[in-house]
């Protein structure tokens, strides 16, 4: 019998994998993909809790998370293209002007 805990543990594992990727990778597009992985892990826990509690709200939240992810993809990847035009690179280390 699959319980809610199975899904929540899987979601936690995927989320920490995404965190690991965001912290270690240098390629901005790969970091973006890891963020998508983290968003999906959260979506999984939203839907499993929603179906466990018999309440629709969690799934509507996932709907809006997907909308935000699409807007984020459009603007974020456009930003990367603009970066690349300026610096011929999308390694995050090359965008450290604001770092102190």
């Amino acid at each position, binding site marked *: 019998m699959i319980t809610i805990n199975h899904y929540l543990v899987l979601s936690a594992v995927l989320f920490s994998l995404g965190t690991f990727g965001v912290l270690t990778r240098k390629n901005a597009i790969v970091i973006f993909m890891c963020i998508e992985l983290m968003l999906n892990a959260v979506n999984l826990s939203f839907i499993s809790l929603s179906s466990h509690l018999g309440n629709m709200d969690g799934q509507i939240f996932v709907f809006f998370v997907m909308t935000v992810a699409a807007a984020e993809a459009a603007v974020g990847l456009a930003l990367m*293209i603009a970066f690349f035009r300026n610096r011929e690179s999308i390694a995050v280390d090359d965008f450290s002007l604001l770092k102190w």
Partner: protein
Amino acid sequence: MEIMYFYLLAAVAVASGFMVVTCKSPVNNAIALMMTFVCLANFYVMLDAPFMAAIQIMVYAGAILMLIIFTIMLLNLGTAVARKGSHSVVWATVLALLIAMQGYFVINRGEVSGITGEITGEMVKKVGHTELIAKSLFTDFLLPFEIASILLLVAIVGAVIIAKKEV
């Protein structure tokens, strides 16, 4: 039977998630990410949310991943950014393990509670999942729904301004 299927899918999802994080070539990362999306769509079906599974495939695997692959091809990352190395793996591993363990303990110690509704698997089958989503989305979540359209409008304008050359 179903629990076996769950473990199989979970193994594939975690393995492909690991590939998203570790593969060297961005195209391989993107394909592994697609595998993870498909596995999650399977889980949504198992959780009595078939409409969510459909839009998971449509939006994530169909649209967002396509845009990512377009960007990879657009920037030609295979040759242009042949940069090796990564940030501190040790600290990232420690932090990721801490997050995973924290999640595990909270899940095992805690009790899942909240506002319970009356929606069951049988009800989803009888009424239809899309209808239940629609009932909730167009009555209780009316304002977020309209705000979502403004968010999309802003995304269109922003992306065109940023990406287009010398507007």
